[in-house]
Structure formats: C-alpha cells, structure tokens
C-alpha cells in the first residue's frame, strides 16, 4: 500500500483519477416562513452553498479542503457521498457518474464512500451501544453470521484504539476523542475506499487531536484509503494533505500541491488566510494581512469575483464584473483570479 507518487506535480496515471467532480452545484431553496409569506414581495431564497465546483481526487491521496465557516465545505462533502442530492453536475466515481444514481447503485456507492462527522457528540445515537452502532453497517455490507460480526466489531474497535470491553457501553460514557474513534470505526465497518472526514478533530482537545490525526493516517496507509479532509484549521490540513483546495463562498479559489499552496500561494484570499494562522514559532509568522469585513451571504454572492468585496489586491473593474475561471498557472497549480489571467 503506497502513496500515489507525485512527480513534478503529475500524478501517477496508473492509479489515476478516482473521483471526478464536474460542475457540481448544490443549492438550498429556503421557503419563506409563514410570517413572511403574507408579504407579497418576499420570494424564495436560493442558498448557493456549492456553486459549480470542479475537482479531481486521485486514488490514495488526501485532498484537503479549507475555507471559512459557511463557504460550503460540509455541503460539498455531503453531496459527494450523496447524502445530499446534487442540484446539478457530475460525480464520476471509478468511471461511472453517480450524481443521479438511485436504488441499488446508490446503496452500493454509499458503502464505498463514507463520511466521518464533525461533532462526535451529536453524530452517535445516545440510546445505542457501541455494538448496535457498529452492527448496522456490518449488516448493510452483508455480514450475516453473528459470530463473524462479533469478531469484526472486536477487530474494528481494536483498530481504532478502543478496548473490546467497550462494546456494550453507550456514547455518553466515552470522552470526545473516544467517540470520534467510534465514528471512525463505524465508517470503516463498510469497508470504504473513500472517506470524507468533515472536521474530524475540530471538536477535540489539542492533546487528543494528534491521536486521531495519527490514527487516520495509519488507516489510510493500511487500507489504501482516499480522503477528502475538511478543516478550517490550516495547520492540520497542511499536515495531512497531499493537495489542498481553498474554498470561498461555494467556489474553489485555489488548488494545488500542499507545498505550493502553503509556500507559494497566489490567490489573495489564500494569502490572507495563511497570514492569519497563529503560530507558536516566532520566525514562522507571516506578515498579517487583515481582511476587512466578513464573508458575504451565499444567497447573493457578489458579482464578478466573489472575493472582490474583501480583496486587498483588486485589479480593477474587471474584478467586479467578470467571474474569474479556475486556470492552471503552473503544473497542477490552479487559481481563479484576474491577476493571473
């Protein structure tokens, strides 16, 4: 089980693209509530949470996804694993478009693409024991024999660093880190190939975060998994990712190898984001770029470049009028900004 070697940014074609996301959109329609419905002018609001995203994830790689709160990271993750219905676009998994898959085909896909949730406190049913929680996915993948199932649960618990004595405990009897381990075991029970890890360590204590990150990395090596790793913590993303995508208001602003993104960022937003990371090491601190204002609403994203309202390098009128496309500026390094077109 080896990592896909990166040669000058060109990915090993033998392993090749694993998941290809094409023009993916996920809009939420917010119906006006009863009160505002009587006001004749109030219309439905469309939240463009994921707005035309293109992304390829290669087999065995960890794709990091960063961006500020509300930019659509979770929505993208949930849409890719098809827990959300895409509004438009394609999700090509091993050569097959599953964006509109139904029935058996969808069930099959959901086994292979799993998600680990952000909040280990609310993502586990409090009335179910660990055994119950893990039995459900095992039955789904067809482990019918109870003895085999029992063995499998023991193996899974051990694999995520829990004791099999814990099998009959309830979630509230575990600490946050342990609960996250249960969530990981549940995802692994399906024998997935692809895992979306949505902020898997954000709710955990600093001393526990490293344990979970290490566990996820070990599992990846051992089971040859592919990850989409979502986090707003850039240091964590730097540590785990082979490549990184930077999202802003439903769109990808910059995409490239982790080293390129962190040491040679080109998009003004990426630059600002990186400059804001606090560091314990004085020498590592970058000159801080303080962005004015806050992220605009995804209901009415700014015209032209979505970032222009906060951009400190704005080129001119073009930024307010024309939406920049994601373009390759060097090998495998993509950016959506008029400064580079």
């Amino acid at each position, binding site marked *: 089980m080896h990592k896909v070697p990166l040669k000058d940014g060109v990915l090993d074609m033998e392993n090749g693209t694993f998941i290809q996301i094409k023009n993916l959109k996920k809009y939420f329609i917010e119906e006006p509530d009863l009160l505002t419905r009587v006001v004749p002018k109030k219309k439905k609001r469309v939240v463009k949470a994921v707005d035309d995203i293109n992304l390829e994830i290669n087999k065995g790689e960890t794709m990091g996804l960063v961006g500020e709160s509300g930019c659509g990271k979770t929505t993208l993750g949930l849409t890719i694993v098809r827990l959300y219905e895409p509004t438009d676009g394609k999700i090509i998994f091993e050569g097959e478009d599953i964006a509109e898959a139904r029935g058996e085909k969808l069930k099959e896909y959901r086994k292979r693409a799993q998600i680990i949730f952000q909040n280990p406190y609310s993502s586990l049913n409090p009335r179910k024991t660990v055994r119950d929680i893990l039995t459900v996915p095992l039955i789904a993948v067809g482990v019918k024999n109870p003895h085999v199932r029992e063995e499998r649960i023991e193996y899974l618990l051990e694999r995520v660093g829990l004791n099999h004595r814990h099998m009959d405990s309830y979630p509230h009897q575990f600490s946050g880190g342990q609960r996250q381990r249960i969530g990981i075991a549940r995802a692994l029970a399906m024998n997935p190939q692809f895992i979306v890890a949505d902020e898997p360590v954000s709710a955990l204590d600093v*001393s*526990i975060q*490293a344990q979970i990150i*290490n566990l996820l990395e070990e599992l990846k090596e051992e089971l040859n998994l592919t990850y989409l790793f979502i986090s707003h913590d850039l240091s964590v993303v730097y540590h785990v990712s082979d490549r990184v995508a930077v999202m802003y208001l439903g769109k990808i602003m910059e995409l490239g190898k982790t080293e390129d993104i962190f040491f040679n960022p080109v998009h003004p937003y990426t630059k*600002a984001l990186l400059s*804001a*990371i*606090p560091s*314990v090491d004085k020498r590592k601190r970058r000159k801080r770029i303080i962005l004015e204002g806050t992220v605009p609403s995804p209901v009415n994203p700014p015209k032209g470049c979505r970032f222009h309202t906060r951009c400190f390098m704005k080129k001119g009128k073009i930024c307010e009028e024309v939406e920049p496309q994601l373009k390759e500026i060097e090998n495998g390094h993509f950016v959506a900004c008029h400064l580079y077109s």
Partner: protein
Amino acid sequence: MLEIRNLKVIFETDRGAVRAVNGLDLSLEKGKILGLVGESGSGKSMTLLSILRLVPYPGKIVEGEILFEGEDLLKKSPSEMREIRGKDIAMIFQDPMTTLNPVFPVGEQIRESLRVHNIIKPEREGILGFLREKDRRKKEYEKVVELMEKVGISYPEKRYFSYPHQFSGGMQQRAIIAIALSCNPKLLLADEPTTALDVTIQAQILDLLRKINEVNGTSIIFVTHDLAVAAEFCDEIAVMYAGQIVEKGPVDKVIGEPKHPYTKGLLKSIPKITRKKEKLYAIPGNVPDLASLSPKGCPFYERCEEAVEECKEVELSLIEVSDGEFVRCIKYL
C-alpha cells in the same frame, strides 16, 4: 494589580466533589496580557468567574484570596461586587448569547450597559427631569455609536437598531467587546473570545483587543485552548491542567523553553507548517475526569512520559525556576 492565591472551587455532585479549580496561584501586572491556556474542563472559565464571584451553583469558592488592587474580592459585599463588575473588571463570556439578548437591538444593549453604570450622569433632577432624560439618552446614543465605531462595527447608526441574529459571529463578538469596554474597565477577562470565529475574523478581533490594551492600558486575561493564539497575543502565559497552573512565565520562556512535560507535549502535538512533515507526537491517554482524580500526587502522572514512581505521592507547588518562570513538577523540586 491582580493576585490570586490558592484559589479552590468545588462542585459537589452525586459523583463526588469535582475540584474544578484546585489551589491556583496567578498574578497579573498592570497593562499586561496574560494568556490562560488549557484543555476543556481544566478550569479556565471557573477561574475567571471566580474573579467576578459568579461561579454558578452548585460550585463554590471554598478557599483562597483574590486581591484586586490590594483588596480581597472574596471579602467584598454583594453590592460592592456589583459596583466592581463591569466598571473595574469586565468580562467577555465564552458564549456570546449569554451576553446578547436576542430580542433587543444591539445598540440599545450597549446603551443599557452605559446606563447601568451611570456613565453619562443625569444633569439635574426636578421638574425638567423628562427633558433631561431625553438629553441623556441622546448623549448615550452618541457614546454608543462612538463605541461601535471603535470596535470596528461599520455604519454604527444603521447597525444600532439591528438585532443580534442579524450580526455575523465576528460582529456579535465586536458588540460584546463594546459592552465590555463601555465603562472603560481596568481589567478585561476574555473567555475564548475568538474560538468560534474563522481565522481571518480571529485576526481582526485580536488586533482590536491589542489596540485596546495599548491605547487604554487595559490589562487582559485571555483564556484560550489554542497555544498558538496565546503565543502570539500574550505577554505571559499560564498553562492549566486539572484545575492547577502547571507552568507560567513570560511567553518566550513558556513557548520557547517549555519545562513541564504537559507543556512540552502540547507544543509537540500541534501540527506545524514546516517543509519537513513528521508524524505528530500525541500525548497518551485522555483528559482526566476531575471527579475521580486522586487528590494526592501530580494530576498529569498517568499521561506523563517523564513520570517517576514518586510523582504519584508527591506534594507539589509552583517552583520558581528562573526569574518570573514557575513550574509545578517533581523534576524542579
């Protein structure tokens, strides 16, 4: 300016006594920013709440002294405390919604805090009281607008009548800071003021707090679980574990040359953005359960990689290892 000695806070629960703060010593000089760092449940919030005597039931301060400008706050009467709260010492609470009331406009809430502390004095009571009140309100309104501007809320006249839910997280935090600053306190207690915010917004808020510290000379105790934030923002750092300070000192010492095994472990376990990626160091074990923690010995014993047999029994206190640098560990006894 502030000196806490041997503070103990206990929660009596059906699982036994939870020693939330367990013999804490801390001091702060005028104009300084002190970072109080520690994991969830280590007692950071309870320490701050103790200073204001706001520890929630069933928690109780059972021992200790909290000297503020030479006077013990624990000996003050409730009315004296009310006077001090907000006026001399203001707090930014961990959860913004405990400060902001969802049903009142933000500006009115800031005005309310001016009123409570009588910042704009009524000129004269009497038959013209009605008119005076109108005049006073107008002055307060102007002051609020000024405060909102100062904390970086743009278009304050327009935003004055907005409700909290119409504000983003960063804006809400600014409004809370405006309330805390309304009486120009000498000491600001900030409980995780940026934890819920994005890094770019966090940078804005830290920038703002830094300015307040420099311009008004306000001393700040800044609570966070993020060592990197504390390292950048604070002059001094105190690391908490299980209700005690295990290490404290100037930021360069604590971050640059950590002494306590817990501080060292925390620093090693933070992912760093350096060219060479290495496997992360992880502190073994879990965060301790305070209800079942042995009252004897070092509370970090079970997770400590440098522990020796004696650590289980040893009687520890903060030991000064160099000028202004203190450590609570058997190796420095």
